[in-house]
Structure formats: C-alpha cells, structure tokens
C-alpha cells in the first residue's frame, strides 16, 4: 500500500498528490512515469512523475479527471492509501544536442507532464520559453510553478477567459517566425494539439519532441498495448518512450487506438466503487 501524503486541488478537474514511494523517488528522472492502481479491482493507469523528493521519499503526480480511475482517485484524501504504485518507468528525457532556445508547449492535460521536463531543463541551466494553454481559465494549472522554471511564460486560453485569447500554436508561431535559433520544441497535450504542433513546426525543420500517452497495461514492454508507429517502425511507448520525435509519429493510428475502449470507458463510470457514478 502506498500512502497519499498530501493533496492539492489545482482546479475543478485537476488534482495533485504526493505519494509515499521512497524507491521510486530515489530513481525518478524528468520524463519518466509511474503506473498506479487504486484497489484490487482497479485498472492500472500511467501518470507522469511531476516531481520527486528523494529525502522525503515522495513522488508527485498531477492528473486531470477524464474517466473512472482519475475521478475516483481525485476523491481520495491525504492520509488514504492506494494499492499499487510502480516506477520509474520509461526513458528519462534527453537534452537537445544543438544550441538555441528550448520551447515548451503544454496544453490542457499536457501541462502536468510538461512541467517536470521544463524543470529538468531549468536545473541543467538551460533557458526554456514556455507556452501553456487550456480551453478555459478553470483548466489552467501550475502557472506559478511553470513561471519559476521558465525564462518566459506565455499563458493563453481558447475562450480568452485568462491570459492571451487564442491557442498555444499562435504563440508558438511567433517564436518560429522571430528568427532566433531553436534547439528543440517539446509539446505535450491532447493528441489533436500535439498533431497540430508537429504539423506546424515541420516546414521549419525544427526538432519537435512529443510525450505520448497511449493506453498501457504493464508498462514494462510485456503486452504491446502501448505500441505506436514511429518512423514506420512499431515502438512500445512504455520502454522506447514516452518521448519521441513528433515528426516521425503516426498520429492517425495513435488517435484511433486511444479510442479502442470508448464504449467501455463510459460504461465503467456507472459502476465505480467510490460512489461518484462519474459525476462531480
């Protein structure tokens, strides 16, 4: 059993937990993830390691409520326990080979997983220009944290309820156009956003990496559920990724595959054990 040490509600739909997992905390590197299961009947779901504190033996996870497991997890309080927590899984992120700016783009659900990477660059002494965005103000999280580790932070909302009115891609366009050298763009968010970003940067020939979130089961390379096509070859996201060169990823396939259990995901909400029934 793994203790949820602290809880912070970041927005209507986003929650942060610090989880007691000293072995994972000791090893965690930016870019890696964990897999957790709430209880005996639960599903194994992957979440990015947002932060870790080896001294206190804790690992931070931040997640958005999208379905059964994440909704039920959000109902837990500090002091409660979850059944399983395994990691760190996946490859740590790599640092760019070329000089220049690093531009980090985090959209919606992608803000949480991009934060540890930006922090990783920051701790390595690199300048990161960050752009975060969400549909509306309530979905925006980690603004202060991102500001602390970014050279510049640009915030936007689709509906203009906060920050700049518009999409992350609009801000990114300014960076692509201003002529400054870009070492790497890192984009994390919903699949349509990542696909849009890689299509946007492709003509500029700027290296653009993405952190993928396919459906997973074991997270150790054993089941193949997480397979994606990268540069025409099948890769297992949990061991070969989760970060890949976005220009090489077959997004159509990934989008289709992530819908595999749509009907079941809806059905599951009616059967949750936490009593939420899928409602807030």
């Amino acid at each position, binding site marked *: 059993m793994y203790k949820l040490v602290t809880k912070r509600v970041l927005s209507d739909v986003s929650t942060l937990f610090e989880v007691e997992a000293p*072995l*994972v905390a000791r*090893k965690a590197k930016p870019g890696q993830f964990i897999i957790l*299961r709430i209880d005996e*009947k*639960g*599903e*194994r779901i992957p979440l990015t390691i947002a932060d870790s504190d080896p001294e206190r033996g804790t690992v931070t996870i931040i997640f958005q409520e999208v379905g*059964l*497991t994440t909704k039920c997890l959000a109902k837990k309080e500090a002091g409660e326990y979850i*059944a*399983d*927590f*395994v*990691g*760190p*899984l996946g490859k740590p992120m790599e640092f760019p080979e070329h000089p220049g700016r690093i531009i980090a783009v985090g959209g919606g659900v992608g803000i949480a997983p991009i934060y540890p990477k930006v922090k990783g660059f920051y701790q390595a002494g690199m300048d990161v220009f960050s752009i975060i965005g969400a549909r509306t103000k309530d979905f925006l999280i980690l603004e202060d944290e991102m500001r602390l580790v970014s050279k510049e932070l640009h915030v936007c909302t689709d509906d203009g309820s906060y920050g700049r009115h518009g999409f992350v891609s609009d801000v990114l366009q300014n960076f692509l156009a201003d002529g400054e050298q870009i070492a790497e763009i890192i984009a994390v968010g919903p699949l349509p956003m990542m696909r849009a970003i890689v299509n946007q940067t492709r003509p500029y020939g700027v290296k653009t990496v993405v952190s993928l979130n396919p459906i997973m*089961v*074991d997270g*150790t*390379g*054993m*089941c*193949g*559920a997480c*397979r*994606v*096509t990268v540069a025409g070859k*099948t890769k297992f996201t949990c*061991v070969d990724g989760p970060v890949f060169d976005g220009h090489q990823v077959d997004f*159509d*396939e990934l989008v*289709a*595959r992530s*819908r*595999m*259990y749509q009907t*079941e*995901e809806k*059905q*599951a909400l*009616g*059967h949750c054990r936490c009593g939420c029934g899928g409602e807030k």
Partner: protein
Amino acid sequence: MEPNVTKKHPMEEQKAAERVKNFSEVPYGYNIDTAIAEAERCLECKKAPCRQGCPVEVDIPAFIGLIKEKKFGEGVFALKSKNNLPAICGRVCPQESQCESFCVRAKKGDSVAIGRLERFLADWELEHGVDVPALPVPTGKKVAVVGAGPAGLTCAGDLARMGHDVTIFEAFHMPGGVLVYGIPEFRLPKEIVRKEVDYIQRLGVKLRTNIVIGKTITIDELFSEEGFHAVFIGTGAGLPTFLGIPGENLLGVYSANEFLTRTNLMKAYLFPEYDTPIKVGKNVAVVGAGNVAMDSARTALRLGAENVYIVYRRSDKEMPARLEEIHHAEEEGVQFNLLTNPIKISGDENGWVKGIECVKMRLCEPDESGRCRPEPIEKSNFVFAVDTVVVAVGQTPNPLVPQTTAGLKTGRRGTIEADESGKTSRAGVWAGGDIVTGAATVINAMGAGKTAAKAMDEYLRSLPTA
C-alpha cells in the same frame, strides 16, 4: 473400484457446451476412490524410470504408494520435499512428454496418471490445511530473487528451506508470473496459485511486488545497497513477438500477452465489476498453435466470440500445443485453419480490424535436419472476415535486466547465458527459466530454479560469515 490395467482412470470435467460460458476450471480432479484406484496401477518400480522425466526429481512411486495406503498427509510431504508447487504442476505440466512418457505402463496402454495423482494430493492438502516443514537455523545469508514466476518461486522456496533469508522482487502487483497473467483461470484457478505462493511465503520468503528490477532497483544495487549476497534472475520470456505484417496496429489486434493479461491478471472477464475492459468481436482469429494460442482461443470463446479460428502455417502434426489443450479447444468449437499463413490485416474506416488475408501453405519434404519448412502456394490468397486478431506466435526475453546490468552475458535471442547450474557471467548471479531457455515450460523453469538453488547454497556457504 477395479484397477484398470491398460487405461488411465478418466477425470470428470465440465461439458464443453457448458464450460464455454464460464471461466471455472474444466477438469474436476479425482475423488478419493478414483485416486486410490489409479494409484493401484502403479507398479512402484524399483528403478522408477518415470523419475527421469521429472525436472524437479519428484519421488513418484513413493507418493503414489502413500496414496494407495491412504496416507495422504505423508504423501504430500513426500511430494513437497521436491516440489514446492504441486497443485500447479499437477495441472499444467506437460506430463505426457515428461514423467508419464517414461512410465513402464506406457509400453502397453496408458501410463499411470502421475499428474492427476499429484493434483489430487496437492488439492487434498489445500483443502485440509497446509503444513510448513521445520526450517533450519538461519545462515545469515541474503538472497534476492528477481521475478515471482515458477522459476523464482521454486528457487526462493528451496533456498528458504536451506536456511537462507530470501526476498522475491516482482514487477507486477501480484506474484505468479505466467501462472497468473498468462494461463487462464479455467486451466489454473488463481486461488490455487495464491495458495501455493502463500506456502512459499510461509517458508519465510519475503515478497516485494511493484518493483521492476533494472528500473526501481538495479542488480548492482541489490548487492551494494540492499546487502544481498547472491541474486537469482527468473524474469521469464515476456516480450511479445508480432508478425511484422501490415495492419498489426489496427484496433482489435492484440498480442496474446495483452489479451491474456487483461483477462486473467486484470480480470477483464468480470468487467465492469473490475475496471479493466477487453473487447472481443464475433469472429476472432488467433495466429499460432501453441499453448498460448489455445489459451487465447478458448478465452475468446468464453468472452462471447461466436467463431474462433486458429490460423497456423504448418499442419496439425506440427502444432506445438499439448494434445489435451488442442482436444479441449476442438471440443469447445475452436475452428482450425491449418497450413494458412496471414499476410495482411485489413481495417475499416475507423481503424478496426475487418479481415485477415492469408495464403495457403504446403509442407515440402523434410530436409536432412528433418525439418520441413512450409512454403506459400502461389495465388492461393484469400481473405476472411474477423473483427479481432490475437497474435500468439511466441515470446522472447524481456531485455530490461540485461540492459541495465553490466557484465551479464546474453545470447543471440536475448536470453541470459548460464551454465548447467544456472551460473551467469556475473559473480554471485544465477539465472533460470524462460529468461535462459526462451519460452519453455513451467516444470523446466522450476527445475532450473531448483538446480540454481543448490549451486547458490554451496556458494553462499563458501562465503565468509559476517
């Protein structure tokens, strides 16, 4: 009951029409009378040739003799002095090619049903309460076992019985390896595995789940930071092989590992009571013809598929699955498309599988090595409609541990190199089971765990005491 000389006593089982609708175990096992009658068929041969066929050296005539005398408790003791997991072996050992193939009775008629008798005794014990043998004085030596499959569990149990302080590290949330994630409930109830693992723990073995060796802790750290004196690697052959044909990433295409893990370990057959879903259509193609393929096909039927096809490129004679499994699959209505090789999977506009294109094959004459390669028959291509495909064409070792352990030699196919005792190229590190041999059998993995335990014991005793 009259002892029958030439035939094994049959084992009652669920009728095919009924069992395809549930996940309950298919054979019921012998009752006491049948077990004694079957035991009477054993001649208790002095040389007991059957014993050659058992990788963990079970004293077969001894335990069968005790069944005859109705001394079940003592029989269990005799069995368990060699085999820590008898209820599992009695169910899934390929006895026909192991112990039973050497039985003198097999020369004229059926061998003694060694496996069924083993299962009978083990089940008797599980019902009547399991005793733990007296343990020796602790040696003060610490051993780490990586992987809680049959190889690791056996090695751990044996080392504990030799007085060592053993900890098993398991990546999954549950111990058992293939026994819990691969082999289905209807062949090996998970409650049986749980009880046998429980026995290993009662021998003093500690179990730490949710630890991926190579990620959470490395082999080097097991020595340097965790203070272990020796390590046994039993991480199995968990990496699924795909066919490498177009369409394999379409929705509805599963590796057998994923298909079985969702169903068995995550209990998707009980969805939505359990959270993990699985999707099976009306028409399912299972590619391959080994035990894994039969398990997948029979699982698909139980999950509600109407037609399940085994697609296999060689003929029935080459099918690697146990005869009993093929027979069970046939009875349940699995259809066999033999000498058929898939070359392409096609999908609909939403990316779902809709058909599988195959080519008919013929077997050419065997060459000098005695193997015959199947070759495609020109222009024999045909497509048949399926909405689910399960690829069950083999597994190779997972590279996680070798990749993160300097100085650990591996073979061409990613297996860890080890000598007959399981000793690897790294001092203090042994390995055994599927990680060394490639995908094989439960009993071979257990045999390897047992052999390694002996060698490790010797090694540990040669170390200076702290």
